[in-house]
Every structure is written in structure tokens, then in C-alpha cells.
């Protein structure tokens, strides 16, 4: 799906808005570490027409949220990092299901872009102390059932 230049800028600003650079604590992207737009195009190419329409609508919904949500004549591009975070938080808890879901779709793309980076993933702790897989066929045993009368998988 081809985006207009403005759409691309709104998309990248929105996705980066979920996890701004330079946060004092937590998982903060390093400058230039995340390609925020790349995941969007991969997802859009695999999606059906309805989903692509929704993805495009989500960009405009968030990008113009200062106008329709706060009645301020500006786009998300002109907001500070703190204002973007606050705006996205409001959209995620909005009373309209459609607004919440479209914003969540953007958050999903932000998470895919952020954790899709090997270096950011390493800092997330997800793979921390991941045990090496072992194979002990003889050790396979059932855990004790609390309720022995419970129906098992063969009912």
C-alpha cells in the first residue's frame, strides 16, 4: 500500500509516539534503531482490502486527533512527545470501540516494529535466561490432577 508523504510522516510520528526515544527508564529506542514504517507496509501487503482501509483510517484518526478530540487546529506532528503520549492514551480508552480498536492497531504496529528489532528485543528481557531446550523422553509425566474425576482430553 502506497502512502502519501503526509500519511507516512503521521504514521511514523504516531508509532514512535508510543515509545519515545530518550526515556529515563524502561525500553527506550536508540536514535535510528527502529524503522517505524517498515512493519506497516509488510502488514498492509498481507492484509485484505477492508483491513488496509482500516489501517489507513487509523493513520488519519490519530494524526488528526488534536482537531476532532481536542478542537486544536493542528496535527499530531506538531505535538511534543509528552502531548503525543497523552493523546494516544486518550484514544486507547475512548468510548467508541472503533477509535479504541484502530488506535490499538497502531499500537500493535508500534510493538511489532519495536520488538522486531533484535537489539530492542534483547533489552526487553523476553529471552533472558532462556533455558536451552532439553529432551528427556522418559521424564514426560502428567501433573497430578486436583480433581481426579475431571474430564480429560479423551472425553
Amino acid at each position: 500500500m502506497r502512502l502519501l508523504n503526509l500519511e507516512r510522516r503521521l504514521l511514523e510520528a504516531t508509532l514512535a509516539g508510543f515509545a519515545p526515544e530518550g526515556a529515563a527508564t524502561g525500553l527506550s529506542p536508540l536514535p535510528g534503531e527502529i524503522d517505524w514504517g517498515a512493519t506497516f507496509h509488510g502488514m498492509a501487503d498481507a492484509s485484505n482490502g477492508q483491513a488496509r482501509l482500516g489501517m489507513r483510517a487509523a493513520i488519519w484518526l490519530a494524526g488528526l486527533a488534536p482537531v476532532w478530540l481536542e478542537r486544536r487546529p493542528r496535527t499530531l506532528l506538531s505535538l511534543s512527545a509528552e502531548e503525543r503520549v497523552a493523546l494516544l492514551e486518550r484514544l486507547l480508552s475512548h468510548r467508541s470501540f472503533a477509535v479504541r480498536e484502530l488506535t490499538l492497531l497502531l499500537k500493535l504496529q508500534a510493538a511489532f516494529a519495536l520488538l522486531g528489532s533484535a537489539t530492542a528485543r534483547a533489552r526487553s528481557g523476553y529471552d533472558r535466561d532462556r533455558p536451552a531446550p532439553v529432551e528427556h523422553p522418559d521424564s514426560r509425566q502428567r501433573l497430578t490432577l486436583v480433581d481426579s474425576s475431571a474430564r480429560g482430553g479423551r472425553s
Partner: protein
Amino acid sequence: MRRETLDEADFVIVGTGAGGATAARVLAAAGHSLVMLEEGARLRTSERPRDAAGALAQAMRDGGTQVAFGSAPMPLLQGRCVGGSTAINSGIIWRMPEDVVEDWTTRFGLGALVAPELTEPIYDRIEQELEITPTGEDVLGGNGHAMARGAQALGLPGQPMRRNAGRCRGSGECLQGCPGERRQSMDVSYVPRALADGARLHTHARVERVLIERGRAVGVRGVRLDPSTGRPRARFEVRARRGVILSAGVIHTPLILLRSRVAGPVGRHFQCHPGSALLGRFDEPIRMSFGATQGYEVPMRERGYKLESLSLPPEMLAARIPGTGAEWQERIASLDHYAQWAAQSRFEAQGRVRLGFGGAPWVRYEPSARDIEQLKEGLVWLARMMFEAGAREVYPGIHHVPEVLRGPDEVRLLEQAQISRADLHLMASHLFGTARAGADPVRSVVGPTLEAHSTRALYVMDASVFPTNLGVNPQHSIMAVVWRAAAQLAAQDSGRVARAG
């Protein structure tokens, strides 16, 4: 677009998931020539992406964005590759529950298809061939072990799941394709077995309609897709001398039937098992990165739901964690401290699948208020189990409920909440019933042999024929029902007793 006759065989099978691959395994072993057609690709395990976005894009229909419409859209997850949904699921195995067998026998006249004396030997055989065992304690992982603790503390009937992954090593990558091919999904079990027995497989072949001549199915017509772009490249036909078997799944099988003008309640009675999940944050590491993707379950079928552990890749896990900015960033800096468990519910609602704009599917589905209340009860149990297992915080992810519950006393906020459909994030991967089977030609599309009432030599062999949902994971029931029907077909066609394999 150019047109070609792609192939010809005794049987043509459309789709290679649990239904199509099992039919192929039985008919090929019985000596029939057959052609399998698959819209997606044959994915080599070593070539499957390990990242969530790549995995969704490559192996799932519409990259995981297919939805049912209603008061709020609900994602419907289906595989689109050789192996179908078995190539992306967790391989959970349940035999068809006794009350379902009884219901189908008395209300739909399907005793000849599902009677226990007929199906028990089939279940036994499949379980032996697909290495089905309970999940070992050594690969239950932190997510499964925590759920076991929570269930045991509350006296709930928990147990390790039985799965078709007897040699599982706990890589936690069922969605991306088991790295060691230990999960016996159809792409690494029955499809290769059918090929070894002489079947032929054409991928990137999307079937659009059945060719019917003088009331008899004689082949299929469709388009070949460009493997790199997915765009139509050429039209094709495959001729079938003895029969056409549709196993394209609960959404696309009825679309093929509708385009082919097959009579009956095609597309009606769509059912599913919608589910929703809770996250818990623990002080000690859970390490979702190790262990079976799904290893532990609490079956509460008499209450209408089943609780399951469900690990996620880091990208999907992070997206489910509440917050934005610094708050979210702090939470996702310790992704090894989260557990996720889901409630899958047997909803009473029925929907419909139709041909939409441009031939695309249009699915309409609206859960009832009772469905939502039933699912909420399951979610309340999950929250209680989370705290009993030691969670410091629970994230329900439900509108009108606090986004963070900080102790067992706060579970009542979830319990007392008036929740509507639009407050929940629902998702469904078990789909049923758009070409239901039954003895009555007015109320069903296919009969007890799974042959269409209105069209000779046209068979439907997937979960479309299930007249009701099950309340348990359906893969095993699909395989057994299809095995039974395919064995009957093999015997009938060759004039000898069915002894496939």
C-alpha cells in the same frame, strides 16, 4: 488470462488442513489417484520467519486480519498454507465430547458418522500416528506451571494439554512453525504421507467453483496465483473422475459452494469459540520464551468455557500490555515476567458467511448477551487464578474495567462490571458449520456420508459440516470425522471393505 488444464485424478481435494490432508492420507493409502490443491504456499520450516509480523503475513489468511462483522469486528484466525490451520495452531487434541455425539445422532441423524464404536479405533490410530501425548512437565514452561499453581490453589480441574507434539522441546514457536518439526501438523505428517503414496500437490492454486455436469461434480475451476505477488496468473481446471472433496475451511468452502450454486443452507449456521485473554505480571520470571506455546488447560465445559495457557511472541505480548510512553516502556522492559491465559467459550450465537464485494467473504456474527456473560465468568476465574499463582498485577484489557487489578480483592471489579460485546477484545480460531451435515436435505447441505444432498460426487470434508460447535479444540474431531467419511468413500468406490493404510 491464459487457461490451462492443470491435472486429472480420481479425486481432487481442495485444501490441505486437518480435513483435506486426512482425506488425502486415507484415499491415497487406499490406492486412489488424487490431486491436492492449496491456495497458500508449502512452507519449509527453515524458511519460515521467526518474527511475529513475518509469520502472520506468510502463513495466515489475510495476514491475520480477516474479521467477522457485527456490533464490533472480531478477528477470525485461519492458516493459509500447506497444513492449513494445523501449521499455526498449538496442536491441542480432544476427542469429540459424548454429549456432542449424542446431539448429532439424535437431532441431525449422524450416528453413522460419529458413533463411538466407529470412531474410537480411528481416534486411536490418529493418536498413534501423530504422536499424541500429554505435555511433559519438562516443557510446560513458566506460563504453564504458573497456571497449574493457580488451578490447584482454587481446586479447579486442570491438566497438561494433550497435543500432537510428543517430542516437543518447548521452543514456544508453534505460530512460526515448530523449528524441529516435532508438532505433527499436516504439512509434516499426512500431506507428505499422501505424497509418498502417489498423491500430487499443487500450491498457489485458488479454487473458485466446482464443475458440475448433469448433477455430478466432475472437477474444479480456479486461478493460479503468482507466488511472489499473490496476484492471479492463469486460470486452471482440474478434472475429477470419481469425486470432488472440498476442505477449504469454514469461510471458503461455503463461498465455493455458493459460486457453484449448490443447494441447501450454505453459509448459514456459522459458529465459533470466541476467546479473550488476561495478562498477569509476576515478581519472579515467568519466561514465556520457553515451553509449549500452549501446555496447560482447565476444562470447564459444563460452564461453557475452557481456560488455557497461551504464550505469545514478544511483539504480540508487548502490544497487549497497557499504557503508552514511559509507563508502557517500563512494563515492556521486563517481558520475561508476564503470563497470559485465555478463556475460549462455546457461544450459542450463529452467524452467516456470504459472498461479498468482489467475491470476498462477508461474515456476520453477533454474540448474545448470555455468551458475553458466560465468557466473563471464565475471565473472572482466570483473574483469580493469576493472583493465586502469585501475580502482582493483572491486566484484563476490558473497557469499563480498570486496566490494572492490583490484588484479589479487585477481581470483584471485573465480576461486577456490566460488560457488552464492544468492551471485549474477542478472537476466534475454531470455526464451524457453514455447510452442515444432516439426514434432512432441507436443513443440511451434506448427508451422513458428507456427500452433498443436491450434487453427486461432491463431498465436504472440513469443520463446515459440523452442525454445532464442540466446546473443545476441534482438530481431532475433524480428522476423525473425515477419516470415517473418506474410508467409507474409498470402500464404496473400490467395492471393498474400507481398510485405508
